[in-house]
């Protein structure tokens, strides 16, 4: 009897916490389907009386957010693909290849981990301006193409590859690149997939750097476009909520599809050390 009571208390607490957690997101979806002005009536309605998709239509026609959706997708996908392969090569080299200065270079890289990104942002902007990369999509990608943390994680993972496996391939006359491509990559695939999903979400959600480097509305990513829209459309609650749904939905679906992998990856850095 007492046990049943305790069980219901725990479940009750979990449900209340889950409701509180989900409420803002549920309200966002609900308000995005309301008629203009409907959400700003009293008492605040929780569900739309006459659901409408007109705000979503407006986002793609009047506000031309389809272009920003495309920009965000392009930046996230290209950044992710390039960074995963670049980090994989470097992480593997640090883990498994013997070369002079390996430990020293790696230690210096680790030092870079303590420097927050903002410290280099101002000169980076000037540098990209000199390279004519300001206000271009590559300019938004560049700071994320190589990541010290990503290299570190691949290195940790790749250390478990047996040396004999690599040496056997070398004896067969395979080139180092060939070994990396057909022996190493399949083995380290799990960590690369995890990192890929992680990078995709991070790049999609990023704000400060694209805000700095992109100045033309047609180049904006969704978060930057949304932040600029809220200035002029602050009264259009329902329209803004539709914009928020459009921005959040792709990452949410991606997360739900890969939640096991993503959750694994998110805690990976913490259990070591």
């Amino acid at each position: 009897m007492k046990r049943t009571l305790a069980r219901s208390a725990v479940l009750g607490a979990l449900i209340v916490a889950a409701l509180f957690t989900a409420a803002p997101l549920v309200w966002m979806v609900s308000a995005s389907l309301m008629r203009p002005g409907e959400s700003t009536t009293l008492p605040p309605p929780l569900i739309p009386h006459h659901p409408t998709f007109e705000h979503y239509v407006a986002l793609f026609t009047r506000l031309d957010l389809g272009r920003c959706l495309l920009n965000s997708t392009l930046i996230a996908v290209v950044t992710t693909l390039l960074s995963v392969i670049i980090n994989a090569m470097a992480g593997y080299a640090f883990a498994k290849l013997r070369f002079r200065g390996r430990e020293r270079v790696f230690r210096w890289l680790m030092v870079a981990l303590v420097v927050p990104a903002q410290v280099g942002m101002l000169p980076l902007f000037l540098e990209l301006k000199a390279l004519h990369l300001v206000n271009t999509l590559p300019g938004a990608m560049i700071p994320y193409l190589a990541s010290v943390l990503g290299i570190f994680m691949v290195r940790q993972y790749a250390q478990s590859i047996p040396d004999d496996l690599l040496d056997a391939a070398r004896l067969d006359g395979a080139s180092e690149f060939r070994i990396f491509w057909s022996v190493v990559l399949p083995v380290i695939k799990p960590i690369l997939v995890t990192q890929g999903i992680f990078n995709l979400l991070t790049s999609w959600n990023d704000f400060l750097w694209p805000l700095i480097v992109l100045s033309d509305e047609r180049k904006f990513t969704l978060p930057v476009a949304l932040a600029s829209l809220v200035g002029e459309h602050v009264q259009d609650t329902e329209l803004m909520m539709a914009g928020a749904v459009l921005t959040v939905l792709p990452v949410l679906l991606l997360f739900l599809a890969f939640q096991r992998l993503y959750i694994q990856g998110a805690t990976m850095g913490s259990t070591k050390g």
Partner: protein
Amino acid sequence: MSRGSAERQDGAAWAFLAPALALILVFFVLPVIAGLVLSFTDFDIYAIGDPRVVRAIGAQNYTQVLGDGEFWNALRNTLVYVVLGVPLAIAASLGAALLVQAPLARARGLFRVVFFTPYVTTLVAVAIVWRYLYHPRYGLLDWILSSLHLPTIDWLGDPHWAMPSIVLLAVWKNFGYAMLIFVAGLQNVPQELYEAAALDGAGGWQRFRHITLPALQPALVFVTVVTLLANFQLFAEPYVMTQGGPLRSTVTLVMLMYEQGFRWWRMGRAASIAFLLFALMLGATLLQLRLQRERAS
């Protein structure tokens, strides 16, 4: 190292490292060093047109920034956010972890995913959502307060409440991540310890105090440092929700840097703010690690 393979792979190794090292060197190390140099110059909007007009001005940016009320205001706001936000975030995530991992809990996987969901959402988008939830007239939060006959709060309009409101949003958004770290820590505690303690007559609080907390020590250190560092970099929430207002009560250090650098194009001044922030973050992290090491021993 196995025999017969003592030969090195220098050429291949550097070829594999080249893209990553080149990118990090050119787009991270170089800008950081340049930033340090920049912070000792008067680089401004004229210098962007013609870099030859830049002059070295010694530590003048630093003395000017430190003598300016704006900097101290931003520092104060940032510290308020850190001091309120870090303990609240830890309490919320630890509570959620204990609840999810409670022996009597059900549907653990489902609740874990629900609690984690806000963490993956786009910050700018959910900040806008919360801006409407905080609306003093039509927002859901004040509507709940008034239906409970509690006094309503002008969340983002009152300088005393604006920063705590942002803290609340940040706790909601991020607690799921730290919860996962704590869950991983809890899963490593051997169940026999609890059973033995229960046999010895230890109550729930005593078991938490003497078994759970010590076992969570590494997770606690990790979560504290990560949250601390993230909190010092607060920017997007106030940018979207309050634009630094009301009465500059939500201007943070990163926001001040952004304003100086990219609104007024005072790059030298902004660079000095960036380095002051860096020094502050480094100091706070070292202090935190030291305190926790002392407490552990």
